[in-house]
């Protein structure tokens, strides 16, 4: 028995040794990286992105190709890549930045998400890079601005998304419906579908930002492009009658059975699968989903042929249909604490340049950089979307992205209550004012 104890405590000691060795290992890696940077001979740039092979195969492949090309052109630089899926990525960013260990290059979201990182001096300012390489002109107007803070840019946007309502052409034809141009027409479409026992709109409001997009469009159509923005930046108010009216319109839709039943408990993925399995006639989502309706071979051809889209309709004769909800998705940041910052910046600008063309033609991503759509062979829907972008009068950045993290959570929770008919439009406005005034 005594001997057993001795053995087990030895095992514990050995385990401790392993833990210590594990810590040591990562330290060594860092030292190596910094040495390389100082001498200018060889450098390792750590790069973290959020497109795993499983869920974003095309993105993943293009990233790998760009890295290979970059390494071939710059034989002294090695890219050390780490991939995480969306939610884990966000957690990892928080954990790494709290210990000053962000990768040299990584992905970030715009506006509100950026704030704590910029305030904590985690991201390197990129204005210089944008000017000296003439990189600034490559971006679609309005995209870089979302990554700006106090006149300095902290991220290079990769994607640009606008939100549309997609609809199932086959279901519409079956009931003699056409894509609505006005809110009244939309209501008629919904009524007809309801009468025929077809779920009109797929909505996964467990994720809450999905519902927020509906609210944002009503706010834009009723209150104009500035109503919501100024309420968020405090030059206006959420108690603006137009914004209260927008909230009321959302509840009107809910009361008319416009959304699939139990939408507040469904994830966006579940709602999407309902739309893609012909179980619902309409679905609002941003253009990041375009591949599913055009090129993605995993989606049945028959379904892809049947998908159409329409711009969010005007409401009571008000609103501009060329005003969009959307914004840049992820962008690249360079870590302020990077030991190989020059190489990291070099890689980031190379990546952005290469990404543009390949992204749209191969992965079906609308990039944030200017792309000449005419020279590429693209599905019709892409050409139309790129045209819409050229004609767009306004792009309103997603509300939860514009807001600081804690206000965004309040907004999203309130969206869920609004859709769940738990609060009135007035309370909805009031609670937003409360949250924003505490900032």
């Amino acid at each position: 028995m005594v001997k057993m104890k001795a053995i087990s405590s030895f095992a514990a000691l050995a385990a401790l040794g392993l833990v210590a060795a594990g810590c040591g290992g990562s330290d060594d890696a860092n030292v190596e990286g910094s040495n390389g940077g100082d001498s200018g001979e060889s450098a390792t740039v750590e790069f973290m992105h959020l497109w795993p092979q499983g869920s974003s195969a095309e993105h993943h492949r293009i990233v790998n190709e760009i890295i290979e090309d970059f390494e071939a052109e710059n034989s002294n630089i090695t890219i050390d890549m780490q991939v995480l899926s969306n939610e884990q990525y966000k957690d990892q960013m928080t954990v790494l930045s709290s210990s000053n260990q962000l990768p040299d290059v990584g992905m970030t979201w715009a506006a509100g998400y950026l704030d704590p990182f910029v305030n904590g001096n985690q991201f390197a300012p990129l204005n210089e890079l944008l000017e000296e390489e003439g990189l600034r002109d490559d971006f679609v107007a309005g995209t870089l601005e979302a990554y700006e803070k106090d006149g300095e840019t902290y991220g290079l946007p990769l994607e640009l998304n606008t939100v549309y309502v997609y609809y199932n052409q086959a279901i519409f034809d079956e009931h003699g419906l056409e894509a609505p141009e006005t809110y009244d027409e939309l209501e008629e479409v919904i009524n007809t579908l309801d009468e025929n026992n077809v779920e009109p709109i797929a909505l996964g409001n467990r994720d809450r930002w999905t519902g927020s997009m509906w609210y944002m469009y009503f706010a834009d159509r009723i209150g104009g492009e500035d109503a919501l923005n100024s309420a968020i930046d405090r030059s206006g108010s959420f108690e603006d009658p137009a914004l209260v009216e927008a909230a009321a319109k959302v509840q009107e839709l809910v009361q008319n059975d416009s959304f699939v039943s139990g939408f507040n408990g469904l994830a966006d993925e579940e709602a999407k699968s309902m739309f893609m399995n012909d179980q619902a006639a309409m679905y609002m989502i941003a253009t990041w989903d375009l591949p599913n309706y055009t090129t993605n071979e995993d989606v049945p051809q028959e379904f892809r042929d049947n998908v159409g889209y329409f711009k969010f309709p005007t409401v009571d004769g008000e609103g501009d249909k060329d005003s969009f909800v959307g914004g840049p998705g992820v962008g690249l940041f360079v870590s302020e604490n990077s030991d190989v910052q020059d190489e990291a910046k070099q890689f980031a600008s190379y990546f952005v340049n290469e990404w543009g063309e390949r992204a749209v033609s191969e992965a079906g991503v609308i990039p944030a950089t200017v792309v000449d759509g005419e020279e590429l062979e693209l599905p019709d829907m892409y050409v139309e979307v790129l045209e819409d972008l050229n004609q767009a009068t306004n792009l309103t950045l997603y509300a939860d992205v514009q807001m600081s993290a804690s206000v965004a959570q309040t907004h999203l929770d309130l969206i869920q209550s609004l859709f769940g008919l738990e609060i009135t439009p007035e309370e909805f406005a009031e609670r937003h004012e409360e949250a924003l005034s505490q900032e």
Partner: protein
Amino acid sequence: MNKVMSDKWFITLYILPAMLLLGILIFIPLILTGYYGLMRWDGIGSMEFIGLTNYINVIQDGVFWRSAGHSFLLALFSTLSLIIYLAVAMILASKIKGSDFLRKIYLIPMLLSSVAIAQLWIKIYNPSNGMLNEILRGLGVQNPPLWLADPNIVLYSIFVPILWQYAGFYILIYYAALKGIPESIVEAAKIDGATPVQIAFKIKLPLIMGVVKVTVVLAIIGSLKYFDLIWVMTGGGPNGASEVMASYMYKLAFANNNFGYGSAVAFMLLLITLLVTLVVRKLTADKEEIQY
């Protein structure tokens, strides 16, 4: 050798590695969490000492207490469900046919990861094409409940898979304990004319009371800090209707970037769990343990 083992220095030396591991992985982070709770900190930038403000805010935070209420409700349900598990274990332990097979079946949920269980039950609960509502509609129910979307029932909808998930674990523990009761005692009772019910309540239950107490503590602690299924299935929603202490803490720290306040909530969670554990132990303390 015995002399060596009674030497305090050797004892210290032997427990040192385990103590170090525990210290580094558990106790130091615990203390740090309490310390972070004293700060205003977004998790990224520099910290600012603000004294007990966070803790005072937690105590006045309605959302926190509502979440705590949900956690306690889960603890209550978990504890009550132990009765069912115990009954099942008793039936399995009495020599019925196929008990071995059934025991294995009950254990399957334990082998699945929480995320897999969550996905499974999300499918079952799907309001329009989920198994449960299909069956209800087949039975003629016009508007079957929106299990995960209705704020009034969402909490109970999630309790079901949580209790289901741990059933096998507790049944296994009870089964092992019941199997440890010497056959001769049961035989003697039978000869004296005891009915099966009497044997269960007067012989078996008192003999495994020690184990039952442990499972009560386990169930309560496990419930108070429960997180995973709830997080995957509803994320605490709709609008906080299924929020528990741990998911609220996680949201504050990782979604709101409010690590200071999140840490304070985490520390409160620890204090509450400790307090409840002490109370439960006190309540179930017995002067004399029954021995075979």
